[in-house]
């Protein structure tokens, strides 16, 4: 053990009680050259003394005020030993039983005199933590930026990938949020036997299948079925740790007021989705065919499987009328009257394509387009070396025309996957952090939209590619900053966004 920096009991006490939290002012008057004067020498020695005193100060804290954690070198995480402090609202995460901190969070707390992290019962110094906590997955530069922002008071979380457009369109993001909230309220129900579950779900499925056929029998069996449904749903929930909560007592509540109906309805879809791949026999499911008939008789579907406030169409269905309606709604008449001058007859006449699969379809369609191009009245124009930019087939929308005329592509319109993956920059300059303004109401389970995003580069690295920055920025308009670190010196830069006015509205 090196004794050099260990404070004795009295030194500790003195240091802790007399610690001055003020920070000497930086800057001030500077000279341009050495003049050898007494004043300069004096100022220099004063500076060295204060600098020395400042650096020589050790970290001291009342033992009871420290949060304690254990370093887990395999997971590269810090596990809480003693319960957490205020910072828990914006740091760390929970798995099944334990509370964890990311290494950068733990290291920052250590530097802020709030935490003691041990390895095999041995409390670590900050130096050891630097050695141990930083890894290839979390670089030192990233830590320095993290720490810089935290010291400023910002709340900093590791960057969460943005939901994709698809996830947004199916509202998966809402679903995740809801499920998290509900899990807390989960009611513990005794688990049913496994055999029974299978029984129940099969029972239920068989009934679902028969729903369309025997609407009469349904009334009798519905209460019975609801019970089994609920039981099996709850059971599945218990097994899967999923989000559905049935607060009413098990199986007794068979009244179908709208709220209750909602819950059971949503739970049934949930369970069905889980088990139908195995058990649903599609050959027995009848979808009414409207081909070759004028009138169709529809059975009333079970209310249980309908969303609330939806009245199903039942009884007689006039197929002929329906077909006429759909025919009318196709805007074929529009072409004839208005767009005759711009679109020729050979364009608007839609040829039917018969294909057995998509590949076939696409191939046939491209053939047709090619055919059109070759046989168009203007095909003469493409015979020479210089050809028009636009083909008659391109004239579908204004946007399409503008697109064709734009020889230099806009970078923010590049969202082609293949183009991104070929970009090597993408790997080196990823967005590292989501930054939030200090806010007492901040919840890490639902952080909301960050105020800033930061990616980290060294001064010798390339700047982040426009694609990285734009892709992120365009999705939710959160500014992306670019932190440059040069031997510990931190500077932030950002790209400003503005668009030129557009005079043509894109259709």
């Amino acid at each position, binding site marked *: 053990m090196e004794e050099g920096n260990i404070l004795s009991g009295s030194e500790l006490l003195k240091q802790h009680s007399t610690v001055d939290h003020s920070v000497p002012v930086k800057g001030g008057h500077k000279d341009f050259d050495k003049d050898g004067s007494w004043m300069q020498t004096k100022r220099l020695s004063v500076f060295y003394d204060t600098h020395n005193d400042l650096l*020589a100060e050790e970290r001291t804290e009342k033992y009871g005020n420290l949060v304690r954690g254990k370093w887990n070198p395999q997971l590269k995480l810090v596990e809480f030993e003693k319960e957490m402090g205020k910072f828990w609202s914006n740091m760390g995460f929970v798995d099944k039983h334990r509370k964890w901190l990311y290494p950068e969070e733990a290291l920052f707390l250590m530097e802020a005199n709030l935490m003691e992290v041990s390895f095999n019962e041995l409390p670590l110094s900050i130096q050891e933590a630097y050695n141990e906590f930083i890894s290839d997955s979390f670089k030192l530069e990233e830590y320095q930026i993290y720490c810089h922002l935290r010291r400023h008071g910002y709340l900093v979380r590791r960057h969460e990938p943005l939901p994709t457009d698809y996830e947004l369109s199916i509202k998966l993001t809402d679903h995740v949020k809801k499920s998290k909230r509900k899990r807390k309220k989960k009611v513990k129900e005794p688990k049913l036997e496994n055999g029974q579950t299978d029984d129940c779900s099969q029972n239920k499925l068989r009934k679902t299948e028969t729903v369309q056929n025997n609407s009469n029998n349904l009334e009798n069996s519905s209460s019975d079925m609801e019970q089994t449904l609920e039981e099996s749903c709850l059971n599945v929930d218990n097994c899967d740790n999923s989000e559905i909560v049935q607060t009413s007592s098990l199986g007794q509540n068979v009244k179908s007021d709208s709220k209750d109906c909602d819950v059971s309805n949503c739970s049934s879809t949930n369970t069905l989705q889980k088990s139908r791949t195995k058990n649903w026999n599609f050959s027995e499911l009848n979808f009414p065919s409207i081909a070759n008939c004028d009138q169709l008789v529809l059975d009333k579907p079970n209310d249980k499987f309908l969303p609330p406030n939806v009245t199903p169409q039942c009884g007689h269905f006039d197929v002929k009328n329906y077909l006429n309606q759909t025919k009318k709604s196709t805007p074929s008449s529009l072409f004839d009257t208005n767009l005759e001058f711009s679109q020729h007859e050979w364009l608007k006449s839609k040829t039917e394509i018969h294909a057995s699969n998509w590949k076939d379809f696409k191939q046939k369609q491209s053939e047709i387009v090619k055919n059109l191009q070759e046989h168009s009245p203007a095909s003469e124009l493409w015979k020479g070396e210089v050809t028009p930019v636009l083909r008659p087939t391109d004239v579908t929308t204004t946007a399409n025309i503008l697109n064709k005329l734009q020889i230099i592509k806009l970078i923010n319109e590049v969202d082609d996957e293949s183009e991104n993956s070929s970009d090597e920059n993408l790997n080196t300059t990823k967005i590292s952090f989501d930054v939030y303004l200090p806010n007492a109401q901040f919840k890490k389970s639902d952080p909301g939209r960050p105020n800033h995003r930061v990616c980290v580069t060294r001064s010798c690295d390339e700047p982040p590619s426009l694609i990285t920055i734009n892709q992120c920025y365009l999705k939710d308009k959160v500014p992306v900053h670019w932190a440059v670190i040069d031997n510990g010196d931190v500077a932030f830069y950002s790209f400003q966004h503005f668009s030129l006015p557009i005079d043509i509205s894109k259709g």
Partner: protein
Amino acid sequence: MEGEERKKIRLYYTHGKIFVWDHKDVITLRKEHRIVGNLVGSLPRAPRQNIHLGLPLQLAFYEAKLLVDTGVGEIVISKNLEKYVDEKKVQQFKELRQKSYEDQIPLFKDARRKEIQQHKHLIIEGKKTKKRKHEELRQVELQNKSKESNAALQTAENFESQNDLKIDQAIPDKIQTSMKDDDKDTERDSSSLNNEEEDKEEEEEDFDIDQIDIPDIKPEHAIVQLFTESLWNIESTEPYQDWRYPQTDAEGLQYHVFKDLWQQNYFITPGNKFGGDFLVYPGDPALFHSFYIAVCLPHDETLTSLEIVTLGRLGANVRKTVLMCSMSGDKVLYTSLQWTGIT
């Protein structure tokens, strides 16, 4: 220094960076070797600000290389925790903590005594008021007793005992709050203490502070040291041979320029923020303005006049002279560029 044999300054190689963890070394480097580096850690006394940072000191590679070449420092690397953390060290650390805790017990007691001494008059005052109130109460009771009949005696007694209780609680509270106002930080365990005092000094107002039995502080109230530098640096580190610098021509040029300027007694800091390679100061950067921006350019690189204008403009805007530095053989050549202002 002065013939005295000096240990080499340990430069810790950590994840591709070089750090100095000993505060004495940091000062020595700056004062005697004109190596400034960059403090990157949080300052212990005020960890949540970026104006003044604390240990560790991060060195640029050219600074570290210079220290190695001049024999001032050596590059070391830390072993994995698993390799050096053992029972013995855990035990050593526990003993250290225990000893520190035991050392603090009498110190805390002394502090407590001083505190009581300081507030002695308040405590005595409190005791007096308490006694007076007791006295008054007793008189009221006596009067009541004489006035009221025997039948009402039962209820009166109830009332009296309730009142007694209230006052008993009220007085220590009062003392405590007054103490808290005066000295919040050093106030410790006062409630238990006050109770004891009361028991002891029931009759007499004055008391002897040395006689008071002050309980030991609890371990969680003891002050502990959070170590910035590792305690096990001798056992846990080994010299690092594999550090390779400079690796590229650009790095080689940068290092030579740095070394040459350093040998001319300048202080040199990184100049990226000003768009160059180095900033050159006549003395310690804390007290002097830099007067050169050094830009390293390979000897054989052709420059367009626009690039030279760019460099000149850069220096003119911050009132510094631009030095274009390149190597010719072993010698570093400097070309200075100054904006004349003639248009």
